[in-house]
């Protein structure tokens, strides 16, 4: 192997990384004016409150998960970053301060400081013409995007809604980039709007006029909704007494109060925060605060809910941070205790920890380290220590990833793969593992490099997907998929097949690169090893794909009464099997040799991408459970990369037919009778 080639490659990789880093280090957007919240949230409180159980989209999850998934959906990033420019006296130059908020801190701000939160630069406008369409000024030199705060965007809400409705009416194919962005912006605005409105009833106090009305509330002149819920019985009696004369001045401002209450009790959106008193078997749905208000006014409230809402409201309306933290902590304890009594939320603390610990991120960084060491090991072929160091790093990363996936299993109570997101982590891990084993068997350092590359790449994809998708990655499953036996048997088997198919394609791409760049010229021993490796990994992939595919059919036969329905996802899996079986037979019958084998394996990699993602994007069939345009772009990028390698390899094979002797296939000759 020629060190100079490897060194040049290394230099290019470093340059690429530097360019990527440089592109990330942009100036954060600015926020003008003073902030209401003058001190940061205490770190330990953020951690505690992140584990607040609540019920959202069919499951009990921690506050931090709600915050993160909402932020991904609205903001398209994992944090909120901005430079706050305080109002300065004349002549002074204001000193901007950079803020970086975690999702939990951001959602706490939305709850407790709605006025501040609605000024955060949140909604990403990628297309400047959208700003113009909505009638905003812009400085004309934006870097292609700008962030709008909710406060400004909601002022154009009606216009945005009209535009979105017009865009919605167009067929998908005829929508322009502006239409797509308008639709997305409108959806994001709705999500934030619900969040913003959710605590409207709790975020203010009501004035009480009239002695008789005040007497109901022990003579208080102001009233919080929680106080009203606590006095619900007396208040109901008072309202009944007033009857149709509630506007009579002798009942004070009862009319205003009733109007406010009817508004507060009918806003039904947002997560359910209050666990019911009755056991889970009798009532599985938690109550939202408006529901609790509504029930209290009808005399059917859970008694504990008034107290819970009271603590929450105390937290929202507190004067200083200490009081706020105290009240919210009390609210957290009450809800956690009530949830625990129902046998819910046991995994909420673990989930909150899971997202905080971010093990797959550490796994990704460890893979990157292992990759860099492996590249060094290629450059310095005689150093056994580097080989061991890279091997150790990659195994550690795989271990971290396994731990990460295992925690997910504990939280969801299901086998490793339930949603598209999980497949990234799983396939990245299994792909890396396969290549590490291959390297263990054939120590040529190439798989040593490819393994951490594969692992890091797919974790990176997983993180991109998580943000782009903007949905809870542990969402409950639909009824047909709720079979842990089949989820545990068919899905992982199939995905091991995908992972090995990806690994084989990577090895084949390495073979093409080695040949095209003449890295092992003239003895071509490296290429020979890679060919053996691609063959071995393909065999492994084939075995798991075939078994996985048939298992899928057996499951379908048990669920729907048909073994095979020619559904796109089924066809995708079948395509992988067919391509690989054909490849092995073509190799055995001498129709292809090492070059053809490598090209065919790269093409099979394309089929894996088709089966894994593209079939979901066709929008048909029983397996169509995910869609996003980012994903479609990813699919076409993958096709293009594979296509480039294919064309490069093909051209090279045409221009320079194999000079070296054909690789001998030791076992194949004996397979055919008569030979």
């Amino acid at each position, binding site marked *: 192997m020629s060190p100079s080639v490897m060194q040049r490659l290394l230099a290019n990789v470093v340059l690429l990384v530097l360019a990527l880093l440089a592109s990330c280090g942009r100036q954060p957007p600015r926020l003008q004016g003073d902030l209401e919240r003058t001190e940061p949230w205490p770190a330990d409180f953020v951690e505690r409150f992140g584990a607040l159980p609540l019920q959202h989209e069919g499951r009990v999850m921690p506050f931090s998960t709600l915050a993160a998934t909402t932020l991904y959906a609205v903001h398209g990033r994992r944090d909120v970053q901005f430079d706050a420019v305080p109002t300065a006296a004349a002549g002074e130059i204001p000193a901007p301060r950079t803020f970086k908020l975690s999702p939990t801190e951001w959602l706490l701000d939305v709850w407790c400081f709605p006025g501040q939160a609605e000024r955060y630069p949140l909604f990403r406008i990628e297309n400047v013409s959208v700003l113009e369409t909505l009638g905003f000024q812009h400085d004309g030199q934006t870097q292609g995007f700008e962030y709008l705060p909710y406060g400004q965007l909601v002022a154009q809400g009606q216009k945005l809604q009209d535009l979105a409705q017009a865009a919605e009416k167009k067929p998908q194919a005829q929508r322009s980039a502006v239409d797509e962005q308008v639709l997305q912006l409108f959806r994001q605005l709705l999500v934030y709007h619900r969040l913003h409105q959710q605590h409207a009833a709790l975020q203010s106090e009501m004035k009480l006029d009239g002695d008789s009305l005040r007497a109901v509330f022990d003579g208080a002149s102001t009233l919080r909704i929680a106080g009203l819920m606590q006095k619900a019985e007396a208040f109901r009696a008072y309202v009944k007494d007033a009857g149709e004369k509630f506007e009579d001045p002798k009942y004070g401002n009862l009319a205003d109060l009733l109007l406010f209450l009817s508004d507060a009790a009918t806003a039904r959106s947002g997560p359910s925060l209050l666990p019911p008193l009755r056991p889970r078997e009798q009532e599985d749905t938690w109550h939202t605060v408006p529901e609790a208000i509504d029930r209290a006014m009808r005399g059917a409230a859970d008694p504990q809910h008034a107290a819970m809402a009271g603590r929450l409201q105390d937290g929202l309306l507190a004067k200083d941070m200490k009081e706020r933290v105290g009240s919210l902590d009390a609210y957290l304890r009450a809800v956690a205790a009530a949830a625990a009594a129902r046998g819910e939320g046991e995994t909420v603390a673990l989930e909150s920890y899971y997202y905080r610990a971010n093990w797959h991120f550490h796994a990704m960084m460890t893979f990157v380290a292992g990759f860099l060491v492996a590249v060094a090991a290629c450059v310095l072929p005689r150093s056994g220590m580097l080989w061991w160091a890279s091997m150790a790093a990659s195994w550690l990363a795989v271990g971290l990833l396994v731990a990460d996936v295992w925690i997910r299993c504990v939280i969801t109570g299901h086998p490793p793969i339930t949603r598209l997101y999980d497949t990234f982590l799983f396939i990245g891990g299994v792909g890396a593992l396969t290549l590490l084993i291959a390297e263990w068997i054939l120590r040529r350092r190439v798989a040593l490099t490819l393994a951490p590359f594969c692992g890091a790449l797919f974790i990176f994809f997983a993180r991109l997907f998580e943000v782009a998708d903007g949905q809870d990655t542990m969402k409950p499953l639909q009824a047909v998929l709720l079979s842990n036996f089949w989820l545990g048997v068919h899905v992982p088997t199939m995905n091991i097949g995908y992972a090995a198919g990806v690994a084989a394609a990577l090895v084949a791409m390495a073979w093409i690169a080695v040949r095209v760049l003449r890295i092992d010229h003239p003895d071509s021993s490296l290429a020979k090893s890679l060919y053996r490796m691609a063959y071995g990994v393909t065999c*492994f992939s*084939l075995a798991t794909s075939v078994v996985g595919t048939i*298992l899928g059919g057996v499951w379908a036969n048990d669920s729907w009464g048909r073994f095979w329905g020619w559904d796109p996802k089924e066809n995708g899996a079948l395509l992988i099997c067919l391509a690989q079986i054909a490849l092995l037979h073509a190799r055995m019958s001498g129709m292809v040799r090492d070059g053809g084998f490598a090209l065919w394996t790269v093409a099979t990699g394309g089929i894996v991408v088709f089966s894994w993602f593209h079939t979901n994007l066709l929008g048909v069939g029983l397996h169509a459970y995910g869609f996003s345009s980012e994903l479609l772009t990813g699919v*076409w990028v993958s096709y293009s990369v594979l296509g480039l390698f294919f064309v490069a390899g093909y051209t090279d094979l045409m221009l320079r037919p194999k000079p070296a002797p054909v690789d001998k296939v030791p076992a194949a000759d004996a397979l055919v009778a008569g030979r």
Partner: protein
Amino acid sequence: MTAVAQSPAARVVAFLGSMKLSVWLLLLLAALTWLGTLAQVERSTYDVQREYFESWFVVAELPLSFWGKALVERADGTPWPLRIPLPGAYPVMALFCVNLIVGGLLRMKWSWRNSGILVTHLGIVLLLVAGAVKLHASYAGMLAVYENPAAEGQRLAGRQYESSTFTSFHDHELALLVDRGDAIEERVVPERALWAARGDGAVTLRAEGLPFTVEVRHFVDHASVVPKGPMVQTRMPVVDGAFVRAEKWPVGVQPKSEAEIPACYVTVRSDAGDRFEAILSGDPRVPKDRSRYPFAFTVRGQRYGLDLRHVVHDLPFAVRLDKFQKLDHPGTMSPRDFRSFVTVVDGAGSQEAQIFMNNPLRRDGYVVYQTNWGPQPAGGPPWYSVFEVSWNPSDIWPAIACIVIWIGLFLHFGKKLLGFLDSSARASLNQ
């Protein structure tokens, strides 16, 4: 491979068993699978299955698009397709099965070394045979029943609460019913025979001893029967103030063949010279209405009925729905579980059972699956439950094949890996 045998028969056998043939057949099947997958963007899965995978020949369409954009657009904005004539998957798989048996089982050396491959090939043959048996000998359909009210009096007259028949999802038939008082004599013609009556064609139906013939015209696969208002223009004949209107799926909606309702015109001509005309519609009414409404006519004092309907299969038992239960994930509309509590009644007695997702009821060779529920999306009560009933002699063969194949592959690749780890080949490749 050198051809040792000289006789033409031996050469044919050698060709049939050759590995090159397997490779080409596999590639052909892969191409069909891929094109058949893409075709499902615009066509119903059922139609594609019929056309690509169960046919002898197909003109496959490859929509020319790149990066999600059409290279050449048709008028409706969909990509212009390349038309490729190919053999259907059916002959390809049949030939592949022969190729596998000849080359992969019979002509292969039966040795310990090849044992893994032989076992795997055996498993694949079993799988292909299971597929063929399923295609030719099995049938399936749906059985929809309403929740049976506790009190007899709460039953509504027409509704189906218990059923011992199930009807095909996709296939129709034209049934001739002869009213014999307490009994019904039934003769059927499969939908296939009526296809000649599409467009301007006509099919005449007859039978030995029948005093009349039935002429079928204007058979439309996806139709609705509508009254002819004064401002409506149509080329279709108008009978009793109504006519058959062909329906189309809107652009962008994947067609669902099970939701299509066929219709046709019939003319009955008796040998006495009487003539009756009517429109027939294949609208399934179950479970709201369990009765069929044939077009009735009387010839020589005998009442007959003509009914265009989904193919009907009779079960040796009846299924009654005692209770339907649907549970959602809390706070959402997405179902976590839906299950039916049923009583199965036959001559011998009755038996209670629960049918839910991934838990079908197997009885007398039939398998009853939970497949749907209604009314959707509002829900009940009154609920009704939709079951899929399937009769498939090869029901568990794929599961057996799966185990066989797994054993074979494990054996083969395991042996190869161990052999390789032991071999000098590895040593020579390691630097």
